[in-house]
């Protein structure tokens, strides 16, 4: 089929609008869907028991959500290689976020990330049980 038979003078406008609609579809969908996605699907704020000695988290929520792993890795290098102590610790996260299952494991399980942290580092409540389970396997 020739292009000229598709794009006749009459339906040229229709084809153009369909193409334009296809191109704009993702943007339109994201605008329409904005109220329905987002915060509700995130497992909420995980502040089980805020410690009164801390006003805020070490970084803002947006940073922590997407870059907490960079922060933890950088801190780890500093602590282990350079001996800079007294900063962020894994156990320190547990001061406010008491429930590790909700705070760490839920999201990491959703993206099938297997965290090795708790084999060695202590986190309140569930760490011991996990090691017992792993050793029994």
């Amino acid at each position, binding site marked *: 089929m020739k292009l000229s038979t598709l794009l006749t003078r009459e339906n040229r406008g229709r084809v153009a609008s369909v193409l334009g609609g296809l191109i704009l579809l993702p943007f339109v969908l994201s605008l329409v869907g904005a109220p329905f996605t987002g915060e509700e699907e995130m497992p909420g704020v995980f502040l089980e028991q805020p410690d009164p000695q801390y006003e805020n988290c070490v970084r803002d929520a947006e940073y922590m959500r997407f870059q907490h792993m960079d922060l933890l890795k950088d801190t*780890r290098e500093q602590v*282990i*290689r*350079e*001996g*800079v*102590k*007294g900063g962020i610790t894994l*156990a320190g996260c547990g001061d406010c976020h008491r429930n590790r299952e909700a705070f760490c494991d839920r999201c990491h399980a959703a993206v099938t990330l297997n965290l*090795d942290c708790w*084999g*060695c*580092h*202590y986190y309140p409540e569930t760490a*011991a049980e996990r*090691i*017992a389970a*792993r*050793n029994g396997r």
Partner: protein
Amino acid sequence: MDRRNFFKTTGAVLAGASGAASLPVLSSCTSEPARAEESVLSGKRWGMVIDLRKCKPGCTACMDACREENNVAYHGDQRWDIHWLRKVQIRPEDETVAGEEKAVLLMCNHCDEPPCAQVCPVQATYKREDGIVLVDHHRCIGCRYCMIACPYNARFFNYKETEEWPNKDYPKRSHGVAESCHFCAHRLDQGGRPACVEACEAVGAGALVFGNLEDPDSEVSRLVAEGSVKRIRDDLGTEPKVYYLGL
């Protein structure tokens, strides 16, 4: 100008020009980036003097304290037990020679030229600025080269995890990583002293003396300067920082 001289002069000119051109590039590559602040580890070189004459026979206070402090795995099975500190009985090799049997406390010697760090394929074992030989257990792949390289048999491997966790403030080790004494680096960084040294003082022996070898006024420096100290396998050139009195 004949052919030979032509090549000589052009070669010399080209070499000089390229050398001059590459100099600033090279110097910019090798220059160290400026450190913003002085490291907390600088000016220190930790060492230990073990006075075997004061070490009580049958006493295990240092070893027990080490286990409690560092969550060193004890399974009650020789194959899997880990000993950051251990006492061995030594006696003269030639049985006809008179000599007393004595217990020697063995541990990681924190060599200045650590063979374990040299062989580590992932740089998990490394010597920190203050001379402590440490294992970054996050990086360790469990190849056990360091165990073979160590002339002091001070390295141990976690064949399995322990469920005991006496000191929750300090991490345990997962299975599949190597470990050894680290002079309680986590305590030193907070201004403390190794757990074994405190335990030895607590039982009244005071056989373990720990301090900064850089500081000429420290007790370890004084004992080392006296000259009667010995190091194990001093001939290997590993420059250990654990000294023995009465060995």
